[in-house]
């Protein structure tokens, strides 16, 4: 193991990790927004829009991110939609993540029993109050495990970004392997940096889940 090589190249990986985190987080934020809108449309059975979001969710869940990115990055410019790679990465991640988040939120909403809603209504609450004070707080806590799984899933999916020439962790590792044949060192750095990004998220997620389970809303 060439320690000098490792130390020397830490800054390079740092920069790449920062790119991964930045795109990953922005992608997650937009996924949440798309997911909330789609889940609301599905839950309230908004006509027409419900069909459209249904088609979007199926398309997004049944195709790989890599292909989605290729289409956005190489295909769309041909019909005049030009984006820079970073924007494209965020858009791709949001396109993929939106449907996963939508499913997480929707199943949370649907898990709150209809009688809970009725009992709020029978106390004289209007629809908005019923949603705000009774349904949403419960739905949110039910969605948490799926939500955390999605965040980790999306952060992991960022590993394909090198395919659209974003200089992320994978790109850096592949580059170094090609340049110096320091395969082991490059891979060790790759693994360590991914762990630095993913482990904290995973640990926080587990803690949050455990806390919620302890709160155990089971009637």
């Amino acid at each position: 193991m060439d320690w000098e090589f490792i130390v020397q190249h830490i800054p390079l990986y740092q920069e790449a990790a920062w790119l991964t985190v930045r795109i990953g987080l922005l992608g997650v934020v937009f996924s949440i927004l798309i997911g909330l809108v789609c889940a609301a449309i599905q839950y309230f059975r908004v006509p027409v829009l419900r069909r459209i979001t249904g088609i979007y969710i199926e398309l997004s869940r049944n195709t790989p991110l890599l292909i989605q990115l290729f289409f956005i990055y190489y295909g769309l410019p041909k019909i005049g939609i030009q984006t820079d790679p970073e924007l494209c990465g965020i858009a791709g991640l949001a396109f993929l993540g939106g449907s996963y988040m939508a499913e997480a939120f929707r199943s949370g909403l649907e898990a709150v029993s209809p009688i809970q809603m009725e009992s709020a209504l029978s106390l004289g609450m209007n629809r908005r109050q019923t949603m705000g004070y009774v349904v949403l707080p419960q739905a949110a806590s039910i969605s948490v495990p799926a939500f955390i799984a999605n965040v980790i899933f999306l952060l992991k999916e960022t590993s394909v970004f090198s395919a659209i020439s974003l200089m992320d962790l994978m790109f850096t590792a592949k580059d170094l392997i090609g340049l110096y044949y320091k395969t082991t060192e490059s891979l060790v750095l790759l693994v360590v940096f991914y762990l630095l990004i993913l482990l904290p998220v995973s640990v926080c997620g587990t803690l949050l889940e455990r806390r919620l389970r302890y709160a155990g809303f089971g009637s």
Partner: protein
Amino acid sequence: MPDLGLEVLLKGQNMVRLLEGLWIALRISLTAVVISIPAGILLGAMMTRKNRVVRAVLRLYLEIIRIMPQMVLLFIVFFGTTRAFGWDLSGETASILVFSLWGTAEMSDLVRGALISIPVHQYESGEALGLRRVQVYRYIIIPQTFRRLVPLSINLITRMIKTTSLILMIGVVEVLKVAQQIIEANRMASPNAAFGVYLAVFLLYFIACWPISMFAKYLEKRWR
């Protein structure tokens, strides 16, 4: 109507070549599924055993595999082990190896989840009837877990198929690589081929995965 580069698909053997590329991706994922499911069932069942050492070792395997992006695992096996052990691993073999390791981990977690979701009373009432342990599993536990597990394992197949798109990155010639070749070869004749061809690849993956997802959803609804 702008040029969408769709005509390239109809030229010569292009569509057939894309389908052949897809077949390679499907073959790899199906091979990995065939290995993962029995291995995952075995490991999942072992995870519910009381032996702490076995459980800790399996848990470690599961967590390591699941926290790493599959892409990183591919790199480790394809670049890392060839260097460390000096063997010559083809891209296809490396992918099957990685996807099987990953699929086994995922499957074992599904199996464990299904097994522990069966209330203790079910085991106890089986034993109270005088059934032996094997019989309790055979007649009571397995039939109940089976229904939960089948839709989830079918979903694992679609996840596997989607993940095989990554093997492009370690140089296996599959559908995306073929697409790149077609676009490259037709750069002069149809400069907009990238739109049409990548759209076709997108839809091909969708056509491969969507019916499987729908089937899983149908089973889940029917068996609930």
